[in-house]
């Protein structure tokens, strides 16, 4: 891979971080590793003084222990995104990145989009209302995150019109309710089927151990956005638990993304507002879990009624999403585990755009997409045969309603398009332990759909625990994505063929190495071949076509360092290059992403500082290139007293001017300037 100047800068930056991390290694940490255990069980002096647990003295209670940070970089973190069941990350058949609730608080992350921004290899483009995810260099126009499968506690949340994954204010779980987010990059169709094209994101919500009693949180930011959340959680002696959370957001007179003459700004801002509401709750116990959620996002925007005057109208939109889900898990005898899931979901998105219907009459052009669907899946795992962990699975999705319509006031519906689809999947995965050092994971899934045809997707992973402090993974997998209803309805009325499902095959080699218990490095190299990518053509009235083949090569480097004093550093550098057969690159495909996260306690555990740096290299667009940029955020988290928490976040600290262009044939949109957010959380039982 030839390194361009910007690569060099980022690469040198990464090397500087590496040097910092290694040079800051305390001598004792390097010396005390892997020494033979002393014969007499006497712990080291410093440890002994800390663990001199005399009942009734200053010994740590369970709550204190649960708050303890790990001083070492754990190698056995529990993840479930790769295989659909909880397992150690070291054995998972995919590299999995995790962001936890502690980090969400520490870095002041405000939405799922913010959390995903912290993940290696992900870049997000924002158009003021919707966050478009690009992963490993692929972020195509008109893709509403359909190439990333997003799960909420293991349940698919991509909707059934655009296959969209909503990651802003319309995601069901407020960030305060998120326990951790896992991201497994790479094709995941071997266990997940459709949409797990670039990767799988699993958002795991908090349980009642963290949502006990009442919690109130209110936030205010310098842009005038107000947030309020209230939650309640209860757990009985039997282990049954229930929780309920409700969040509100109000944002009036929002700042404009573009510059306008100052005399017109107040009128424009008066028409620009956003409001959202979210409710999430559930009960759990005896292996049964019932959850339901609701989100509603309303937005108003100023709208020019004519080309050449300042006559303004009000554009408004409302998106309402609901779901209910039932999960059941139990063991069948000693060797079999059963897991059942059933969920129903609904999405209703409406847009109303004003237009002049006569000299003084303002009418609205109304667009609506309405979807209702059910998902069911059944998984059966067994370890009846020594060394094998077998999982069989069935999955089903039925679209009860898929309706896209457009019309105008007084004219009724001018266009209605209805669809109906059924998808089912059948999969098997075998985790085969060859010996203590080698694990093979073999998987295969067949998906069939009434519309969209059938697809076979294999998975092959070899996991080699080369040494106690190092492991190697070789991963091969494929994935597909069938045209969604939106893509179908763009082509169908014009008698154009529906695009074939797009496919990706990927080979990845990943190595992770602990240089010391407190410093871990990882590197992964991948090659992906994409076929039939569904994209818009470049005609004036674009429609969807299958693109020629693409090839992506990439490298992801990461390091994680922890210090005894509680400071932590995480850094990742992602390099990728995507080319078509003519050697042409893609638009919105940055070659390099650098992400740094550094946090440290300032006054014991009372005050935490969190600093984030996110750098993105130059991106091509269909017009001018978008320059690379570096954005930094700083957050202070203060716990003045038990049950109280204050957080001050500064976003885009250095006032970086940067642009995104998520829409094809659009223009670069300036991104948010510096802003601050103050939050206060109060918990009581």
């Amino acid at each position, binding site marked *: 891979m030839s390194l361009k100047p910007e690569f060099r800068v980022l690469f040198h930056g990464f090397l500087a971080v590496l040097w910092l991390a290694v040079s800051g290694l305390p001598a004792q940490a390097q010396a005390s590793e892997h020494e033979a255990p002393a014969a007499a069980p006497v712990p080291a002096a410093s*440890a002994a003084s800390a663990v001199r647990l005399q*009942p009734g003295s200053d010994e740590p209670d369970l709550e204190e222990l*649960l708050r*303890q940070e790990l001083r070492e970089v754990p190698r056995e973190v529990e993840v479930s995104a790769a295989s659909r069941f909880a397992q150690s990350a070291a054995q998972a058949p995919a590299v999995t990145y995790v962001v936890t609730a502690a980090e969400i608080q520490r870095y002041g992350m405000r939405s799922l989009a913010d959390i995903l921004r912290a993940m290696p290899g992900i870049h997000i483009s924002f158009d003021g209302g919707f966050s478009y995810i690009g992963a490993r260099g692929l972020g195509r126009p008109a893709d509403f995150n359909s190439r990333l499968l997003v799960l909420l506690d293991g349940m698919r949340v991509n909707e059934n019109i655009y296959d969209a994954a909503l990651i802003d204010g319309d995601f069901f779980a407020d960030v305060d309710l998120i326990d951790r987010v896992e991201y497994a990059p790479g094709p995941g169709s071997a266990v997940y089927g459709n949409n797990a094209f670039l990767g799988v994101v699993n958002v795991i919500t908090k349980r009642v151990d963290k949502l006990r009693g009442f919690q109130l949180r209110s936030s205010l930011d310098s842009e005038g956005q107000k947030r309020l959340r209230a939650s309640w959680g209860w757990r009985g002696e039997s*282990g049954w638990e229930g929780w309920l959370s409700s969040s509100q957001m109000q944002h009036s007179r929002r700042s404009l993304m573009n510059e306008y003459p100052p005399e017109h700004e107040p009128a424009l801002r008066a028409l620009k507002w956003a409001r959202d509401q979210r409710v999430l709750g559930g009960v759990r116990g005896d292996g049964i879990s019932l959850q339901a959620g609701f989100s509603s996002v309303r937005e108003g925007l100023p709208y020019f009624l004519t080309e050449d005057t300042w006559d303004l109208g009000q554009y408004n939109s409302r998106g309402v999403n609901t779901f209910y889900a039932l999960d059941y898990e139990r063991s069948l005898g000693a060797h079999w585990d059963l897991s059942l899931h059933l969920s129903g979901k609904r999405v209703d998105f409406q847009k109303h755009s004003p237009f002049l219907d006569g000299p003084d009459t303002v009418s609205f052009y109304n667009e609506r997409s309405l979807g209702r669907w059910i998902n069911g899946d059944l998984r059966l795992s067994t370890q009846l045969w020594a060394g094998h962990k077998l999982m069989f699975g069935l999955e089903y999705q039925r679209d009860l309603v898929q309706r896209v319509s457009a019309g105008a006031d007084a004219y009724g519906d001018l266009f209605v398009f209805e669809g109906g689809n059924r998808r089912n999947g059948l999969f098997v995965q075998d985790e085969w332990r060859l010996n203590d050092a080698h694990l093979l994971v073999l998987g295969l899934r067949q998906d069939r759909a009434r519309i969209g045809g059938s697809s076979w997707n294999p998975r092959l992973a070899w996991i080699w625990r080369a040494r106690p402090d190092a492991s190697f993974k070789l991963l091969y997998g494929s994935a597909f994505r069938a045209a969604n209803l939106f893509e179908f309805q763009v082509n169908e009325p014009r008698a154009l063929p529906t695009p074939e499902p797009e496919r990706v095959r990927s080979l990845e080699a990943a190595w992770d190495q602990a240089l010391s218990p407190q410093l871990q490095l990882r590197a992964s190299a991948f090659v992906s071949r994409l076929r039939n990518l569904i994209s818009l053509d470049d005609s004036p009235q674009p429609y969807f076509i299958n693109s020629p083949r693409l090839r992506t090569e990439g490298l992801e480097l990461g390091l994680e360092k922890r210090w005894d004093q*509680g400071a932590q550093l995480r850094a990742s550098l992602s390099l990728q290059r995507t080319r078509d057969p003519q050697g042409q690159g893609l638009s919105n495909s940055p070659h390099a992403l650098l992400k740094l996260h*550094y946090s440290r306690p300032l006054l*014991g555990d009372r005050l935490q500082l969190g600093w984030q740096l996110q750098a993105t290299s130059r991106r091509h667009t269909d017009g001018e290139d978008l320059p690379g940029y570096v954005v930094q955020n700083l957050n202070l988290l203060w716990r003045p007293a038990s049950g109280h928490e204050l957080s001050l976040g500064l976003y885009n600290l250095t006032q970086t001017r940067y*642009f995104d262009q998520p829409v094809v044939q659009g223009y*670069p949109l300036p991104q948010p300037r510096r802003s601050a957010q103050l939050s206060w959380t109060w918990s009581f039982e």
Partner: protein
Amino acid sequence: MTKRLPAATLQRRRRQALALLALLASALSPVRAGLGLDDAQLKAAFIYRFAQFTQWPGPPPQEFSYCVASAPALREAMSGLPQKPHAVATVKVRSVSEPQQALGCQVLVLGLSERADLLRWQQALGGEPVLVVGDSAEAFRAGVSIALLVEPNGLAFRINHSEAKRRGLSLSSQMLKLAREVK
């Protein structure tokens, strides 16, 4: 409506970023936070607490045994535990290599992750009042009473209350309240 992009002047910003990073990583005076336990000691401290929050049937034993299988680092850390947690004469931390050796233990810590091994150890105990603690999701699925779970930022635990009751153990409500999951 078009907008001319400003010339990219990022060199300075990048330098700033690196300078800030260097400043943060080196210049701030160290502040010790937390209890200063290493990870095995933290696990050991949890297990010690679990034992404190558990009541065994019958009179207190003369000798309280923590038994550890397949977790040498944890066994090492547990040897540093306080000597009188349960008002008994002596506390012992023993390594055990065969399920039969675990019959006299009050707490059995299993550092295993294979279902078959986990089942073999637990079945050998029959209905004995032994608090079986595991440290993986697989251990919890295989029916241990308490399973530690490792998260990037700390430890948490799950409780299989019905299994603990089957063994005649009584777990305090404080522990049930703080568990990630109770089944």
